[in-house]
């Protein structure tokens, strides 16, 4: 990640051939792509126009780069011309990864923003799941700089917004070892009350696990035994850095995967997310694991589905073929697709509804849509609500209901009531 950032600092001064090498490297190393995106975004407006265009095009196809780019743009957002800010809002409404990054950058400098702008950002979290994740992450990472009032405000926010809670937990988890003991203890208490926060904390903790003392590593795995969502998160964090893990930690991870199904789901989720960046050998090993561990298969499917629309057509076809032979992989794939359904093109949406004939796909898609209901567009929400009849025996509806149930605590109060009314 760091090296990518460093290259981007001098990006416009690099010779054309080296710039091409750097750009290409971002297509096969996710962390490098993330870092490159961050600093390219940071200096974006100083770059030549043709380079700016090339960068924005790359952000359409490389989601990790997009997330990094968003970060840099978010960090410097207050200094961007208003017209470009508006352009970014539009782009962020269509690109969930860019939105995530912009949220992260703004979260890093949250304390510097005016109260009015802060309110606007909170409002944006209600409609953009990526932005909610990102803003929470940035704020969590820079928690140290917040005053007491703002600290309470963000934790209150985390009670009402699942994506924000996850992000906040991730930012705090990633910086866990740098926090004072009292805060560490407070964070551990909070995982009892907020499941998305617990998942995020686990993910951040897992991401940095190789830098932690043996004592903290063991503590993380112990917590995961009793907290399913923390376990999912821990798996996700380790999944993100899986290719960089030393052999002994990898072995420990394989062992935990067999014992803790939630951990296996999480691990699969992030490995699926960055699957295309892995070596061919690692990809093959992972696809073999899908047949041995069904929870891992579900998670892997979710990760692959989460970024499915960005994959090349041929790879999409390959994934669908493999999924047809593995129902849990198919379920996860559809759930991941459903989670980001709002950001898909109309053609993609139609395509996916056609696959709805597959029971597992339909149930998974329903789950993803239900789980991210709050962040779906008004039209999509209405469609889901109008189709909700609990008497109907439909896999899709079943999935939606389970998804809604999982995200129930973060749903708006009026909708919670409506759900109960329908049950009655």
């Amino acid at each position, binding site marked *: 990640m*760091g090296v990518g950032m*460093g290259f981007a600092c001098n990006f416009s001064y690099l010779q054309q051939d080296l710039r091409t090498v750097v750009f290409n490297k971002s297509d096969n190393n996710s962390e490098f792509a993330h870092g490159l995106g961050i600093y390219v975004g940071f200096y974006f407006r100083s770059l030549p126009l043709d380079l700016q265009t090339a960068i924005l095009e790359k952000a359409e196809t490389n989601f990790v780069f997009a997330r990094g780019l968003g970060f840099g743009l978010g960090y410097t957002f*207050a200094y961007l011309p208003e017209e470009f800010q508006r352009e970014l809002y539009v782009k962020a409404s269509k690109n969930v990864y860019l939105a995530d990054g912009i949220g992260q950058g703004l979260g890093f400098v949250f304390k510097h923003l005016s109260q009015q702008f802060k309110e606007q950002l909170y409002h944006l979290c209600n409609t953009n799941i990526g932005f909610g994740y990102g803003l929470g992450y940035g704020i969590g990472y820079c928690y140290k*700089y917040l005053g007491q009032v703002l600290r309470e405000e963000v934790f209150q926010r985390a009670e009402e917004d699942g994506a924000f809670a996850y992000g906040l937990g991730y930012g705090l988890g990633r910086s866990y070892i740098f926090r004072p003991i009292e805060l560490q203890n407070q964070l551990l208490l909070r995982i009892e009350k907020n499941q998305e926060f617990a998942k995020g904390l686990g993910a951040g903790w897992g991401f940095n696990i190789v830098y932690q003392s043996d004592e903290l590593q063991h503590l993380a795995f112990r917590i995961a035994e009793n907290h399913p969502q923390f376990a999912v998160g821990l798996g996700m964090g380790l999944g993100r850095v899986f290719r960089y893990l030393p052999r002994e930690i990898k072995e420990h991870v394989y062992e935990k995967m067999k014992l803790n199904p939630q951990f296996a789901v999480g691990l699969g989720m992030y490995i699926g997310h960055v699957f295309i960046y892995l070596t061919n050998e690692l990809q093959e090993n992972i696809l073999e694991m899908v047949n041995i561990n069904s929870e891992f298969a579900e998670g892997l499917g979710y990760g692959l589905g989460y970024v499915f629309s960005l994959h090349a057509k041929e790879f999409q076809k390959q994934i669908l073929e493999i999924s047809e032979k593995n129902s849990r992989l198919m379920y996860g794939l559809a759930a991941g697709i459903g989670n980001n359904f709002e950001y898909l093109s109309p053609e993609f949406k139609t395509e996916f509804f056609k696959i709805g004939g597959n029971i597992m796909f339909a149930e998974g898609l329903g789950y993803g849509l239900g789980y991210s209901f709050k962040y779906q567009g008004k039209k999509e929400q209405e469609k889901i609500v109008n189709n909700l009849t609990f008497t109907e025996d439909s896999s899709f509806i079943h999935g939606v209901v389970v998804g809604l149930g999982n995200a129930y605590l973060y749903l708006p109060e009026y909708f919670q009531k409506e759900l109960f009314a329908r049950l009655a």
Partner: protein
Amino acid sequence: MKRGWLQNYIHEGEVIYCEGPASEPLQKLSIWIYLSGQYYAMHDISREAIKFKDYARVKIMNYLTNDFLQVVPKSDSQIYSFGIFFGKNIEYIPRDDPRTFLLDNIYGFMKSKRYFEIGIGQGSGESILSLNEDLKEEICRRAEIDIEFARGLADSLGRSFPLLDESSQEQMLDMIDTSDPFARFFGESLGAALDHLPKESQNKIFKLIEKDLTFAWGIGSGLGYVFTSLEKSFQTEILKKAERNSELTVGLGVGFGRAFTSLHKSFQDELFAK
């Protein structure tokens, strides 16, 4: 001839300030006069060849402040240098209240020009120790509010850190708790100068990066940038610390990336292979 020092005296033909020539001008000017073809050219690149007296600064800043929008340059690089000059002379800006940071119109302009803000921060950092307490406090407070100002201020304070006395150093280190941009960019410039500090100060900073992830990132970035010029034993010590500090590691990577084109080929290949 309008470039360089004369630019500071004359603007649009109007004399702002005039002073008799120095007794031995050529000796002082020798660092910035050179022969270009058949012409003598003069560039005060470092903007330091001319030392103004205080009353000259007051006059110049009065002029620049009163006609701000007319004199402010257009390009980002010029605007950045202009900001540095403004920051260096921040105490000479006419103000009614000694705690006022900048006049409203200049502040408003600064918020729309990122590089001007960085420049003001950087310039302010260079003059901060000589400022009155009220203004000094206000400048430190601004580092909690204005992102790019904090970045510029942090950058110059980090560079001058090795030259400061112990109590001033303590004050600077306390400021890393104020904001992400300050901690990050202060760390970055301090990291590049870390090997010039006595062992005791180095250890104090290494202790701080165990508790402050943003500062750790910055220190890593600075160290990474000058890594190949460090002594072998110091390099080893840094890499050892990086094994247990994620943000120091990311920062080191940033520094390596920034310095990439000046690195040895084998090191470049190793970085790309990671």
